């Protein structure tokens, strides 16, 4: 178990003394009234930059070669079934892994924004696991395939319609070399 410091923030603020909606109270507003400064929080630092590529230490270095970039696998709404049309994408990854024995793959499972965030975290994991199972069936050793679910937290497309949702329901591949 490791420990990290919690970075307490914080920002000063005006004294916005409430009390709207408290019928019958002697005074509706305290000093300063209900105004508030929403921009008092300091800018976020950049410590979190690159966190999406952070890995469990054992994975090795991210491979950025063009031939290690693979298409995302698409899913139907609330489904982790791999459609016939998506199989070739996974087969391409399997070919690469078989041809490059020192590599491992991390499969990121993603969902669209509909549904509960907690359920979507589980659904995204299921999507990544379904891809993993197919890779294993194609002859890739299970210990070379890691999964990570982002649920609905990392959309590729920030829109809110069918086209955006289709892009966001995906399994994505990152390859690592030891």
């Amino acid at each position, binding site marked *: *178990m*490791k*420990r*990290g*410091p*919690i*970075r*307490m*923030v*914080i920002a*000063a*603020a*005006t004294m*916005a*003394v*409430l*009390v*709207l*909606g*408290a*019928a*019958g*109270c*002697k*005074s509706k507003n*305290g000093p300063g*009234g*209900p*105004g*508030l400064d*929403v921009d008092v*929080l300091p800018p976020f*630092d950049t*410590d*979190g930059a690159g*966190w*999406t*590529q*952070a*890995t*469990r230490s054992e994975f090795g270095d991210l491979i950025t070669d063009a031939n290690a970039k693979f298409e995302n696998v698409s899913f139907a709404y609330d489904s982790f079934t791999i459609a016939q049309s998506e199989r070739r994408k996974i087969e391409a990854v399997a070919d690469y892994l078989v041809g490059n024995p020192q590599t491992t793959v991390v499969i990121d499972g993603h969902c669209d*924004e509909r*549904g*509960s*965030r*907690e*359920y979507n*975290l*589980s*659904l995204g*994991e*299921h999507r990544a*696991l379904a891809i993993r199972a197919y890779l294993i069936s194609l002859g890739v050793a299970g210990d070379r395939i*890691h*999964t*990570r*679910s*982002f*649920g609905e*937290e990392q959309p590729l497309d920030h829109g809110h319609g069918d086209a955006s949702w289709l892009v966001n329901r995906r399994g994505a591949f990152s390859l690592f070399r030891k």
Partner: protein
Amino acid sequence: MNYIRQFCRKSVWLALSSVLVLLALRLASAQDIRIVGVGADLKIPLSLHELTGGATVAEKRFLDVLCADLVRSGWFTVSDAAPVIVLRGTCQVAGSSLEVRCEVLNRVTGKFYFARVYREEAARAPAAAHALADAVVEAVKGVKGIASTRIAMIGSREGMKDLYVIGSDGQDLVLLTRDGVPSLSPAWTPDARSLFYTSFVRGFPDVYRIDLERVRRTRVVAFPGINTGAQVSPDGRFLALVLSKDGNPEIYTQELSSGKLTRITRTAHAAEASPVWSPDGRQLAFVSDSTGAPHIYVTGREGGKPQRITFRGNENVSPSWGPDGRLVYSSRRLGRYQLCIYDPQKRMEQEPLTTDAVDHENPSWAPNARHIVYSRTEGYAASVYILDTMGDPQLQLTPLKGDWYFPVWSPR
């Protein structure tokens, strides 16, 4: 007068959060609450007229906050005309401290509830007001007050997601993390001194504990796959959580002292999520999609065959198991998530509490088993609201820009 001397317990929270962002609470436009219990007609008239003070800023602030707290409790109307409950005494600032001497009595029955003295730094006048308001609610109504409680939640501002805590009156917003990464599922420990939550700060969904007293964050569960949804048992000794380390997302419990895991669900072809403990700690409710769509199930704390409890709606997710034994959850009806209550005594899914054509998600019971905090999404913007199951208007807790979701009410 036989005053009982009592110092307001210092809020650990306020001590560690040096500076606070204060928000204004405001009445929401949302009026879609269905009255399910006693209504406004049964509120008790209460007078603060004989509680004298207000000459200084701190005294005035104390009285304003006390009044707002008593109104927000839902049990009283504050009125000087024909009061039933009377608070009388003095609030006075001397130097940098505020002293409140107050007795509470029922003018109709003659019943005397209590007399207490509250002393607090003048700058912390609201804390004294919250303590007195909660004492009044408990003495007169025999139920817990919520004035001193807080709500943890996730805020997303320009895509930067972090953990926040806010007072249940919409004051004292505190940013707890500055990671700007996906953060989910905050949960209080029963003593309200720590929070568990899920963060991607190290790249993967792992469970962290934030000790609010020592201002320290520790990663506590980090198996391969997802580690999320941690909820502390009522005795504080166990977590219920979701892990996928054994193949797919399943519910487990973990003893905090030993780390020993017990697997609760075994569904090779289904995803589980959102475990919650029953108030007696003997059962767990959770979400499973084993029928093809997510619904809520209940099982024993050691596992066993889960029993499905929700059948209405296309989906039922995000249960919160209240202190009186009722569950509240989000039920997808006509394409929108509405809040529903399940009463295990009657084994009945009640009609939705909400009917507006917006999404109502992640409900969490207040310790008074009357109010519910939830995330309301309208036009793809989420904010946190408080709903009164007895019919008072909803209150918007987070008028700030940004998205606010996963609210969880502190247990005290």
